[in-house]
């Protein structure tokens, strides 16, 4: 009888023991790339596609989360070609800008002052010397021929966002 009485007591003890399950966490140095806003081309004039809001486009925004400062550099390359488009018989001239916009720490403004631009202005490199989150705003414009009208159809262009360990 005493043994039978012990069973619920033991069961209750087991439940109490089961409630204390540890949750382990580990923070390691890493860079996370997030495609925040995919972007969209506006078509303000017949010969132009642009992601600028003034041109009816949507600016692509890429978010970088940096856990540890000075471990990575961000490299963002804007399009110099369409990855898919209707047949184009003339050349397309591309212009672009990449800037650090919203940032979790005001000291991240150093990303913009110290950025390096190369590859005819299509690649921008930022030294991620501060930890936190930063949103990079990318504008991209494509102009077709000499005032020539883009053929109708779907146009897709690719932005390459990289995080390179230093």
């Amino acid at each position, binding site marked *: 009888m005493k043994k039978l009485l012990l069973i619920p007591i033991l069961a209750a003890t087991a439940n109490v023991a089961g409630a204390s399950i540890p949750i382990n*966490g580990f*923070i*390691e*140095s*890493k*860079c*996370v*790339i*997030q*495609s*925040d806003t*995919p*972007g*969209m*081309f506006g078509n303000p004039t017949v010969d132009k596609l642009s*992601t600028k809001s003034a041109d009816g486009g*949507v600016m*692509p925004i*890429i978010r970088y*989360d940096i*856990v*540890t400062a000075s*471990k*990575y550099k961000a490299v963002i390359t804007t*399009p110099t070609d369409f*990855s*898919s488009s209707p047949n184009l018989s003339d050349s397309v001239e591309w212009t672009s800008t990449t800037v650090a916009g919203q940032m*979790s*720490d005001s000291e991240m403004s150093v990303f913009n002052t110290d950025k390096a631009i190369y590859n005819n202005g299509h690649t921008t490199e930022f030294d991620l010397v501060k*930890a*936190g*989150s930063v949103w990079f705003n990318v504008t*991209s414009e494509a102009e077709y021929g000499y005032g020539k009208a883009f053929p109708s159809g*779907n*146009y*897709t*262009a*690719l*932005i*390459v*966002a*990289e*995080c*390179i*360990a*230093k």
Partner: protein
Amino acid sequence: MRLLVLLLLLTGGYANAHQFTPTYPKLEISHMPGIMKADMVLFNDRAEINYYGINVFDEKWNPVRFATQNKIVPINYKERKYITIYLSGTGIKNAKYICSKSKILMTVTKPSIVSSRICSKLK
């Protein structure tokens, strides 16, 4: 604000994120003689991406020969995959960067799309 960012990182509050860790992998001895390995973790939180390409480069970004189970890794949304990179011969000496790059299918036709690449550095 920093606390908020940290909380977001800990809770995985990303909508379209790509992670590739560790930042500085170390080459270790594998079960095969003369072959070294590095263990990497790929996490896909990009709903529109189902494949990542794996590549190894030297200091000057020349490709380095390596072996792994899949050089194009099929991965589902919110899935974590453990990837082992095997290097041999000059690859052990020359390899500097291990990179994962999102592969975008032709069926993804958003007007502007982002390809993400994260490179870890062998030290």
